[in-house]
């Protein structure tokens, strides 16, 4: 295929060389005409060949671009299995991930994602040409398609860590056990079943119905629907649901909270007589609230019996009727796993599961306590009182949870396949496993809940002290005053000056004030406001005091007290001047407020204590483009920090000490900040901008500030711990 082009390359080069100068041409006009034409046609040929390449590629280069085959299932290759072909051993009950699974195949993967290979589809027949099983069912085809479309998939057998045979064993009743096992054993990478994954939903066969697939399968992992404690290999097998085709057929919109007509409903048709009599006794006792449905006997022609249920003469639509009940029975039948569980969850009805020793679907990661009630078979008669003891609010929560489980993990073969692979993935890379909350919390809860990164209630030891970070540009005199003042605070452990001026060198070492703690100067590469919030390695304490180089109106008592307050609220911003955001009804947007108000929702970071971790968050985890926006506008870094902390902790700021001027006594404007209109407009704009980036208004409004216990109390000043509060 490539030859034409290679030829062309070798030929073209001399051509190019020869024709370089127009002066050469007249000399060879007749002599080389033939040569000329040959050249010309070669070029043309090359052109044509390239064109063919471009516009008809998949016929030439196979397995690229258009790789999806359009074939019929009936055209797949047939494989004849000799009667004496090797048979795998029965499943080994002692298998665990660290004994039977070969993790070396998965290797270390920076993405912590396993690679899954799917064997191509074949049709297996025995010596007499009789098929071993149905080639493939619709559900198994959906499952394999889902895997193939996912990030887990690879088509390279050598890179794969997990292998999924295309031999369909979802339903044990549709296959011949011995021959299927032989078919498995001859797969290319079978290797005693190591790292092979089989999906089975209906195990066992009459009369005693084993709870795991009977096909001998060596060490293969089994994703099975209907495991019992005795067959389930904890941490090796995966328990999956039995897929209900109603999931795809029926569209049941989620039903909101509120009372439902029936308290308890049973919709299963083939119940053991003992269970049925128990249920009927229950119904007799609680007429109105319990409904036991049965198979309809006198349905007219053409009505699907699976979609109707009857009670006496009443006919109910199934599964719609499930939405009318608070609790729905899921009783074991011959098999432990019941497809009705999926229908019940879809209807947002809380399943009452009566199947001793049943391993619930995905129980390794799903918290079924939140979505179901499990009752031991022996206690079935007490069931009603147990269920009645559950408060209505909890029932509604469970209903929501049940519906969420169905949506996330039951509703399609794809959902089932993805959950199964994720569970196996989590076992192989346990340090990168998905958390409990991610598996179990419905999206609404994930949205409304706040997980504070500093959740441990812990008062840091006072001895650690704090690091003061002074952001400065060139106001050396004022800077030195600030340094001298701050160094008087007993708990100061280090002072860091962030020199934000690239055009000017910081003063010489000898000129700096002599203070009792280490003083370090960090020079920045660019004059950016975000330099103030960079998590410098020099910060060794948890507490950080951000302070501007012009804040000289704070006493050592006030700063020390601020540090004490921070120790009690280490997950909050603890600052001095407070600000408020307000909703402007006329303009329908947020407004910045710096007047004397009874509330605060922000503190200025011109002087504020906060946890070092927030520096990390500001620098690396600030949502959207806020960080660049702040640097570009040279404003609102403090508002951004307030948003960030409030959003991640869900808590309000703490304002410390009374309100006053902070910069210079001479300044006329309050706080030395220019109160002119443009400033306020700009700040309001910041709030609106940040609220839209965060998608919410995270700031919390409070009506309190922190003062020393004896502040302004009638008590001798000299006996107070912090007498100099509000004195400047």
């Amino acid at each position, binding site marked *: 295929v490539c030859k034409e*082009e290679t030829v062309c*390359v070798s030929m*073209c080069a001399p051509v190019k060389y020869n024709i370089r100068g127009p002066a050469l*041409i007249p000399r060879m006009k007749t002599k080389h005409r033939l040569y000329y034409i040959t050249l010309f046609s070669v070029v043309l040929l090359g052109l044509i060949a390239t064109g063919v*390449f471009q516009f008809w590629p998949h016929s030439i280069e196979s397995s690229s671009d258009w790789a999806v*085959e359009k074939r019929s299932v009936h055209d797949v290759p047939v494989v004849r299995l000799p009667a004496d072909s090797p048979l795998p051993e029965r499943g080994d009950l002692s298998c*665990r991930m*660290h004994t039977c699974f070969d*993790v070396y195949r998965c290797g*270390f993967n920076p993405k912590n994602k396993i690679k899954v290979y799917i064997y191509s589809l074949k049709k297996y027949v025995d010596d007499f040409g009789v098929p071993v099983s149905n080639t493939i069912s*619709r559900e198994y085809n959906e499952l*394999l398609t889902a*895997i193939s*479309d996912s990030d887990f*998939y690879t088509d390279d057998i050598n890179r794969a860590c997990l292998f999924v045979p295309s031999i369909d064993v*979802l339903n044990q009743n549709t296959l011949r056990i011995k021959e299927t096992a032989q078919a498995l054993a001859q797969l290319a990478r079978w290797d005693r079943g190591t790292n092979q994954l089989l999906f089975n*939903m209906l195990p066992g066969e009459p009369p005693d119905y084993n709870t795991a697939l009977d096909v001998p399968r060596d060490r293969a992992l089994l994703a099975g629907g209907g495991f019992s*404690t005795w067959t389930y290999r*904890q941490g090796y097998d995966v328990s999956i649901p039995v*897929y209900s085709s109603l999931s795809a057929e029926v569209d049941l919109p989620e039903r909101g909270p509120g009372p439902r007509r029936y308290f308890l409903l049973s919709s299963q048709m*083939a119940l053991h007589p*003992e269970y049925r009599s128990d249920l009927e006794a229950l119904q007799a006792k609680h007429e109105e609230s319990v409904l036991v449905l049965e198979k309809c006997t006198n349905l007219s022609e053409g009505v*699907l*019996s*699976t979609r109707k249920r009857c009670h006496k003469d009443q006919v109910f639509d199934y599964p719609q009727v499930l939405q009318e009940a608070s609790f729905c029975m899921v009783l*074991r*039948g*011959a098999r432990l796993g*019941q497809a009705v569980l999926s229908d019940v969850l879809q209807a947002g009805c809380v399943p009452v599961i009566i199947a001793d020793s049943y391993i619930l679907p995905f129980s390794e990661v799903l918290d079924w*306590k*939140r979505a179901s009630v*499990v009752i*031991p078979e022996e206690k079935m008669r007490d069931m009603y009182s147990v269920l009645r*003891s559950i408060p209505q609010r909890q029932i509604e929560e469970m209903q929501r949870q049940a519906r969420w489980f169905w949506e996330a993990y039951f509703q399609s073969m794809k959902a089932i396949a993805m959950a199964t692979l994720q569970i196996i993935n989590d*076992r*192989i890379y*346990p*340090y*990168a*496993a998905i*958390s409990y909350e991610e598996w179990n919390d419905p999206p609404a809860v994930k949205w409304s809940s706040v997980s*504070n*990164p*500093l*959740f*441990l209630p*812990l008062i840091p030891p006072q001895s650690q002290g704090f690091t003061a970070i002074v952001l400065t540009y060139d106001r050396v005199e004022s800077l030195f005053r600030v340094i001298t003042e701050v160094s008087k605070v007993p708990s100061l452990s280090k002072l860091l000056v962030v020199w934000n001026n690239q055009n000017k060198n910081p003063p010489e070492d000898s000129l700096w004030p002599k203070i009792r703690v280490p003083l370090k100067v960090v020079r920045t590469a660019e004059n950016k406001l975000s330099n103030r919030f960079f998590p410098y390695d020099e910060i060794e304490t948890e507490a950080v005091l951000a302070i501007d180089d012009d804040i000289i109106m704070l006493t050592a008592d006030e700063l020390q007290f601020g540090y004490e*307050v921070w120790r*009690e609220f280490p997950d909050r911003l603890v600052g001095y001047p*407070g600000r408020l955001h307000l909703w402007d009804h006329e303009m329908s947007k947020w407004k910045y407020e710096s007047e*004397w108000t009874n509330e*605060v929702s922000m503190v200025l970071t011109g002087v504020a204590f906060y946890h070092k971790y927030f520096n990390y968050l500001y620098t690396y985890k600030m949502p959207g483009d806020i960080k660049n926006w702040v640097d570009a506008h040279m404003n609102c870094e403090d508002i951004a920090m307030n948003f960030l902390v409030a959003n991640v902790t869900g*808590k309000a700021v703490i304002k410390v000490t009374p309100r006053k001027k902070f910069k210079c006594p001479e300044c006329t404007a309050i706080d030395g900040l220019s109160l002119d209109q443009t400033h306020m407009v700009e700040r309001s704009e910041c709030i609106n901008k940040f609220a839209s980036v965060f998608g919410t208004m995270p700031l919390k409004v409070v*009506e*309190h500030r922190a*003062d020393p*216990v*004896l502040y302004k109390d*009638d008590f001798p000043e000299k006996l107070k*711990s912090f007498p100099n509060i509000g004195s400047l």
Partner: protein
Amino acid sequence: MQSRRRKYLWLIFSASWLLLVLLGAPRLRQLAIPPSLRPRTLTSWPRWLDQELLPNFVEPEELTKDPCPPSCSTRQWQRQRPGCLMETCFDTSRCQSHGFKVFVYPVGLTQPISEIHHKVLASIEGSGYHTANPEEACLFVLPGDALSPQLLPLWNGGQNHLIFHLHPGSWPDLGFDLGQAMLARASPKPETLRLGFDVALPLFPQSYPQRGGSRGQLAHLIPPPGEDLLAFESQLDARVTGSSNHLDQSTILIISDHHGEASEHHRDGPCKQDHNTDQSEDQKRLYNSTFCFIPPNCHLGSFHLLQALKAGCIPVLLSSGWELPFSEVIDWGTATIMIDERHLLQIKPALQELPPARILALRQQTQFLWDAYFSSVEKIVHTTLEIIRDRIFRAAARPWLLWNAPPGGLLALPTFSTQPGDFPFYYLQRGSRPSGKFSALIWVGALDQPPLKLIQEVAGSQHCAQILVLWSNDSPPPPQGKWPQTTMPLMVIEGRKKKSDRFFPYSAIGTDAILSLDAHSSLSTSEVDFAFVVWQSFPERIVGFQTQSHFWDEIKGSWGYTDQRPNEFSMVLMDAAFYHRYYHVLFTHFLPAPLRDLVDELSECEDILMNFLVAEVTKLPPIKVPQRKPLQEVLQHAQGEQPSRDCISKFASWFGHMPLVHSQLRLDPVLFKDQVSVLRKKYRHLERL
């Protein structure tokens, strides 16, 4: 002609040349790259032309039929199967009438038992579940693990019996047939543990503290610069140690080994218990590393695990070989890093890639788990009992969050609620908030007059929902008409005239917030309003007005408390304080009866006990808000020597440590005593003296 043709020729020639280059170049480039490096599209699973016609894996009718053979009858099924489950080996009907009660066989029945078993028994006897009457017991605990239980009168094949097996060295020889008895075993192997039936314990030495125990020792939530990445115990087998050499030595510390020989010897045999309790050197190193590798070593693994938790060093565990303590309820993924031992070479890159947010969360979780479940024998034993209780009363079991977020399962009682959103400490995590009203609970003691003025002041608050008068006066309460006329529902509860009644979870309390009052307290409406608004920001703490401070009395060698240290405080008085109604549940059901009896006998102890309890849960001080009453008056009001002084010491010894925490701040209204027009101030009445 000639030149024109030549021109023509030229034009065509160069044009086709250009075309060729344009079209051919990408193709050529592609050919130049070897196939292995070329980006490839995947061959995916085929989309069958006839996939819509494929048969279902099962016919819907068949699914609904699912014939139930005789063998699926309940009882038969159970008898066929070996092994033990809660459903099959535990008789929960014993627990229905009297609830979860635990009986301990008298020690005299058996051979002398070890010190550690004595501690275990003392812990059970100290719990609220203990009963001396075997008739009402639901669970029976053996006083040791070396006796022939067949001699016990109520053995019954071991049903409902629990054996604490704390000397894993003697495994597998318990010396008798376990039968249906549950085993709470230190460092069990997964294959010997009956999942969901036995309980996995950590291994702890004889010298382990009975109660209290030391707090977690993490000083920095974020690893400070210069902290080691990973501390290794060198008790690894050759394969593992060999691989550790591949890791960067500069960041990995190999801890020297005091006891390698012994553990090598005991790898599969019995392990001595105490041979590594003197770990001072290793301990110091643990504090200096972010991660600690815990080798899956004999039974000591779980002891090392505890040491690492305490030090705040994130345990790195191999995901095979042992069952982690209380793994039934504790989500160890939130506090440890698990790694497949065959991926050991990747430890370093894997750890280095962990985001700081994860490390921060892991470090905090180690401290929480240590403090909540492992720091004392009592906590370990109580956790065991609570796990079994949760199994028996499934519908009222603790959800995941209660076990895995502070303050933890022992302090979050499912008898209050199984919804985390109802507890004061989980509001933020569940996105819920406390109800916006409070109930005033006024205690009228023996000498008090009906608090008519107080009722009026409190009823004036816009946040008040109801007023409950707890009548503990000897005279009968005044009739309906004698109470002040308010729009608030007022209810009189006649108590048992015991002080501990104050903190009983009355069903009449309809709000999350309670304002606890004495008949003689004097409060104004605005004080109440402001305090309640503050409480809404701190629903897990007590918010009060008058304070006291505890201190260690060097001379007497005991704890004392005073209100003469007004610069700080650690308790607020309950004669005027807001708190969450959950603390009534804790006070009544978590604290043991003897402590409540003490409160009934001695005066002024109920304040202290409530403050102890809340501080134990929150680990934080209460909150003080301003009151109008001048401080001097408050100080003069104080008595000289408190008669009940020793109750603080008694409480401290019961808790095993001093839970109270000092605070130096008071929360005032934002404009409190600021120099601004009083008309601007919302709580202006707070400033008027």
